[in-house]
C-alpha cells in the first residue's frame, strides 16, 4: 500500500542529477542561429575527381564544408570526401593546388589535414604530410593555431 503523503519522495531519481551542470558559474555557450551547410555532395565530388578536376573538387569540398555543424555524421561524411579529394592528387600537383587557394580556404584545409591525421589508413598520412608542408609554407603557424582555437570544427 503506497502512502499518499510520501508520494513525492518515492522516486530517488533526484539523487542522480548532476548538480554541477546547473551551477550558475558554468560558461554558457553563445546561441548560434547561423545556418550551417549540410556538407558536400558525394556525387558531385566523385564526378569532379573522375573528370580529373581535382582542384575544382578541392575548392568544392572546402566551400561546402559543414563547419560547426552539430551533426557528427554530417561532419564525418564531409571529412571522408575531403580526404578522398586530397589523396586523389599526385604528390607533385599539391603545391600548385595550394597556391590557388585563398587564406580562408587554406585554414579550412589545414583543419581537414589534422582530422585526416587522426584516422590514418594505407599511407594516407604520408600524403597528408606533404599537404601539411605546402599549406604551412603559405599560412604559417597561424593556421595551425586556428585549428586548435576555432570553435567551429570540421
Amino acid at each position: 500500500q503506497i502512502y499518499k503523503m510520501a508520494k513525492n519522495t518515492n522516486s530517488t531519481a533526484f539523487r542522480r542529477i548532476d548538480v554541477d551542470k546547473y551551477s550558475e558559474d558554468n560558461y554558457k555557450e553563445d546561441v548560434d542561429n547561423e545556418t550551417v551547410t549540410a556538407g558536400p555532395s558525394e556525387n558531385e565530388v566523385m564526378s569532379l575527381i573522375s573528370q580529373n578536376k581535382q582542384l575544382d573538387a578541392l575548392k568544392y569540398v572546402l566551400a561546402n564544408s559543414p563547419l560547426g555543424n552539430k551533426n557528427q555524421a554530417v561532419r564525418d561524411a564531409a571529412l571522408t570526401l575531403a580526404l578522398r579529394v586530397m589523396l586523389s592528387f599526385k604528390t607533385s600537383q599539391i603545391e600548385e593546388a595550394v597556391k590557388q587557394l585563398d587564406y580562408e580556404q587554406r585554414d579550412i584545409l589545414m583543419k581537414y589535414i589534422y582530422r585526416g591525421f587522426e584516422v590514418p589508413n594505407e599511407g594516407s598520412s604520408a600524403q597528408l604530410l606533404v599537404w601539411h608542408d605546402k599549406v604551412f609554407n603559405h599560412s604559417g603557424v597561424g593556421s595551425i593555431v586556428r585549428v586548435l582555437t576555432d570553435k567551429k570544427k570540421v
Partner: protein
Amino acid sequence: MAASIQKVGPAIPIQCHAWSSDRQTIAVSHNDKLVELYKQQPGGSWNQTDILDQHDLRVNDIDWAPNTNRIVTCSADRNAYVWVQGADGKWKHTLVLLRINRAATCVRWSPQENKFAVGSGARIISICYLDEEKDWWVAKHIRKPLRSTITTVDWHPNNILLAAGCTDFKVRVFSTYIKEIEPKPSATEWGAKMPFANLMAEFSNSPTGGGWIHAVAFNEEGTRLAWVGHDSSIAVADAPSGMVMMKLKTNLLPFLSLLWIGPNRLLAAGHDCVPVLFHVDSAGKVSQGPKLEEGGNVVEATAAASAKNMFKNKDRLGQELVDSRLGTTHQNQINSMRILEGNKVEARRVSTTAGDGALVIWNLASGALAVKLTALKI
C-alpha cells in the same frame, strides 16, 4: 641599437610592468606576490628601491597614474591596492574591496585618474572611484552580458567608456559613468546614452573561430578599437563608419599585447617574442608590416662537449646539437608592452617585458627601425 635589454632583477618571468611619469622608475612583478620598484642609475643599471608587499597571491597587473603618481595593483588574491607615495618616499597602501570571488586579472587607471577598472575571473568588471567623504575606494560592478573571465581593459579618452576583452571571445565597450564624481558625458561615435554599465558595442572575435581576447586598445581619439585574439588574429573596429570591424588572420603565433604607436599604426607582441608592426588604412583594413627585428632560429648550435653528452642529447632530445636559443632579443613570450616615450600618436620608444624576465626597450626612431616604419606605406 634599436633594441636594448635591461636587467631588472632576476631572470624570472615578468608578469607585468608600469612606468612612473618621469620614466626613471619601473614597477615590475616577477610572477609572485611582490611588486618591485627599480630606479635607473646614471650608469644604466637598475637598483631596487622599494618592494610593495601586501598581496597574498600572484600580482596580475600594475598600473601607474602619471599625474597623481598613484600605483594600483591587482592580484589573484581577489584584491586591489592603491599605493600612494608619502613625503618620506615610502609607499603606503589602501585596500580596495572589489567584492569579487575570483582572481583580479587586469587593471587600468582612467585618463583623468579618478577611477580605475579591474577585470576579474568572476565575470565582473569592478569600476572603482574614491569616495571623498569616507576616504575609501568604492567598487561598482559591470556584469551583464559578460560570460567569462575579463582578460584586458582599456579606457576611451573621454574617461567614461571602457573596452573589455574576454575569454568568451568577445570585445565589448561599456559606459562607466558615475554620476557622483563626474558630469554627464556628451555623445561620442560609440553612442549617446551612457548610463553606468550600458553596453555600447559588442564585437565577436569568433564567426568561425574563437580565440580568447588578449589585449584591447583604443586609438588616440577613441574612434577606433583594436584587439588581438588567441586565434593569431588582429582586428580593428571603426565606430564612425558604423562599427565596421576588420579582422586579419596572421601567419604568426598569437599576440598577447597591443599598442597604438601612430594614428594608423599598431604594434603587437606575443608568443613570437618580437613586436610586429601593423598598418590600418582609412577603410579600417589591417595589413601586416615588418617585425621589429629579424629573428628566426639562431644559426649556430652548440655541439655537445663530449661524445657521451652527444649520445645523451640524442637520446633525450632527439638531436645531437642543443640549440634552444631564439634569434630574437626576447627568449620567451612578450606579455606586456608600454609606451616609454611619446604617445599613441607618435611613440618613439616602447618597452616590453617577457617570460624570460628581461625588459627590452625598443627605439622606434632609431635608424633601422625608422626606415622600416617609413617604408610601411601610409
